[in-house]
């Protein structure tokens, strides 16, 4: 081995050491900043893994975060409530967070909102689990969710810096921007404005099924979720929030499968997808599947009454 080559190897080793140290140190610094966030999507997850004390906890996608007015539900039920819903998320996100909470806290009720097509395979559902990456190694449930992601993300998460990829902007906005904090510091409830009364709605895309492909991971996670709640002796309510123009006459295999599983597991299910109080009422919707604050208040009120009378 030539002297030159030896020096090269030593330098490569030195650079590698520097990179590892920088990764650890910068990762540590980012971690400290990360947990200082007081709003936004990550704040909800940090709240779930560390300091949940609420009686009612709500999970799901934007159909949860924008449809369940947590402060209103708190007022109507008299029980503290937090909305952990996050945009675009599925049961793959919900289960690890429920497990994280149940590890140290026993809420009175867990509400999980699931769309009719929840059990359909969608690759985006896995990509969106990147939201959990900063919580790698916080607990095994989160780690196994990250392991479901494509491209060996679980291996990449061994880099402390990579875990916090693209989070700096969120950290700055949700730690130092008062405007953002005011918007999102509402027990997790997020509002979207507008209605569809002046919009031409001739199409009805939500009734199209296309090629049927069930997601076995999601089915497994739903079953595990029910098991975890039962084991912890916590009540579980599954909901589907109102839809503007869902046609129940059209066969929906995903909905059938969902209801079949919920029946098998004897889980309480509140189906708002075809609720006549909302269906076709444009003033409640900001688009076909999202309620505006007026609609969200109506739905939260309906849910709160149901919870009070049947579950609490």
């Amino acid at each position, binding site marked *: 081995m030539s002297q030159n080559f030896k020096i090269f190897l030593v330098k490569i080793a030195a650079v590698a050491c520097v*990179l590892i140290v920088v990764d650890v140190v910068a990762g540590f610094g980012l971690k400290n900043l990360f947990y200082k966030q007081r709003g936004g999507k990550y704040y909800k997850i940090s709240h779930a893994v560390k300091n949940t004390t609420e009686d009612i906890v709500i999970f799901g996608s934007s159909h949860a975060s924008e449809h369940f007015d947590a402060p209103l539900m708190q007022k109507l039920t008299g029980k503290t409530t937090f909305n952990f819903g996050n945009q675009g998320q599925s049961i793959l996100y919900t289960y690890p967070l429920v497990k994280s909470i149940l590890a140290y806290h026993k809420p009175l009720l867990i509400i999980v909102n699931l769309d009719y097509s929840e059990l359909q395979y969608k690759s985006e559902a896995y990509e969106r689990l990147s939201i959990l990456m900063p919580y790698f190694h916080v607990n095994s449930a989160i780690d196994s969710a990250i392991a479901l992601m494509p491209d060996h993300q679980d291996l*990449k998460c061994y880099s402390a810096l990579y875990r916090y*990829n693209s989070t700096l*902007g969120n950290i700055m*906005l949700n730690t130092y921007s008062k405007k953002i904090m005011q918007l999102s510091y509402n027990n997790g409830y997020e509002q979207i404005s507008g209605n569809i009364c002046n919009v031409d709605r001739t199409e009805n895309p939500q009734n199209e099924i296309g090629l049927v492909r069930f997601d076995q991971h999601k089915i497994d996670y739903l079953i595990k979720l029910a098991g975890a709640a039962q084991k912890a002796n916590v009540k579980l309510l599954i909901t589907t929030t109102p839809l503007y123009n869902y046609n129940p006459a059209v066969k929906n295999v995903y909905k059938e499968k969902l209801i079949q599983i919920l029946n098998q597991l004897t889980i309480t299910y509140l189906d708002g997808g075809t609720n006549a109080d909302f269906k076709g009422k444009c003033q409640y919707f900001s688009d076909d599947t999202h309620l505006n604050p007026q609609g969200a208040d109506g739905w939260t009120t309906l849910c709160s009454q149901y919870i009070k009378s049947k579950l609490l």
Partner: protein
Amino acid sequence: MLFTSVQFLLFFFITTVLFYLLSPKFRWLLLLLASCFFYMAFVPVYILILGFTIVIDYLAGIYIEKNTGHKRKSLLIISLVANIGVLCFFKYYNFINDNIATALLNFHHQTPFPYLTILLPIGLSFHTFQAMSYTIEVYRGNQPAERKFGIYALYVMFYPQLVAGPIERPQRLLPQFYATHNFKVENISAGLQQMLIGFIKKLVVADRVALFVDNVYNHAADQSGKSLALATVFFAFQIYCDFSGYTDIAIGAAKVLGFDLMKNFNRPYLSVSLTQFWQRWHISLSTWFRDYLYIPLGGNRVGNLRRYLNLLIIFLISGLWHGANWTFIAWGLINGLLIVLESVFKISSKRGHWLTTVCKTIITFLLICFTWVFFRSANIHEAFYILKKIIMFDGTIIQSNDHYYYAFIVVMALVFFEVINEYKPNLYKLLPNSFAARCAYYALLVVVILQFGVFDGGQFIYFQF
């Protein structure tokens, strides 16, 4: 296997180690096998198409050299027809068929040709042009025919530049496969540095900016004129960093192995005219068109009108080369027209007073952005719709998520470094050059990639060509 994937990094590491461990006489074989593996990682069966053209061009090269007169020309034509035929079939068949179908529909007839569900072999336009340059150079007598089939196959398939160039010439690349590439620390260091820069361009700038651009362009009807204008400017940086980032990784990877590939970009957005832009953007393609099309058509030796026509033909073909869509044809033609106008009005590419230079740079950049609208739009109607909205310049810029802020910051940083590199390169000499300083520099780049990189950004834009 994308350059930005973990699989590629592993593949590259193993190939490099084996390359230097092997005896020099077997290295070409390793590179050929590695290149086959790399290409087959996309769609394995398409290696047969590549193999077909390689065999034809290899034999054509040998027989062109052996023969004289008309036979030489016939062999060249056979080779070119085979290459262009494969390219046309995979790239343009459905496009031509669609347009025939639309035309026939006006006369209440249906096209007799079926629509084919075929996937374009990755990088087909690139290796077709590289293969064509070989047979043309052999025909011209500038390059001896390659006798070793494996070496010729490697010339077409060399994995760092197989799928998106730079489009090399045989005189530059073929001799390098015969040279002994000793392990040189400076090659490894320079190559890795260039790869790192490429990763920054692709992951931190191109894919980051794409989040904003795609969000706006994919919902153009819901966007304001200002958002569309900004997205178009950002797209200019996205495509630049996407393609030049790829090229940097390709050149860097080749450099690590001791090979020199040609420079493909030279800070194109700091050009002061469209003519200069095309001398700095995708240089290997521009020079290919110059050497094998523009000069044979008469080059600058013909009259002005003929020269303008030639320029339009070149840019029309350049547009078609990019993709089988009217948007690319329009993009090529608009570029051609602008170049012709520059020539007619004798707009100089020389830099004068700093204020003139700044104004000319900005005007050139805006004209390029105008052409990118056609490049980025899904169809011609959408392109005109977007242009109309941009001209109205109404509404506000969407800032609903952090994509806008990130995109803005990384684009500003890129412009800063491009300007420094162009006008004040000596500033870098003021920086310390000790080993510790270089370590700090690498560490900073890695931190930037890991924090600001987008790792699910998908493939390189130019792979589709």
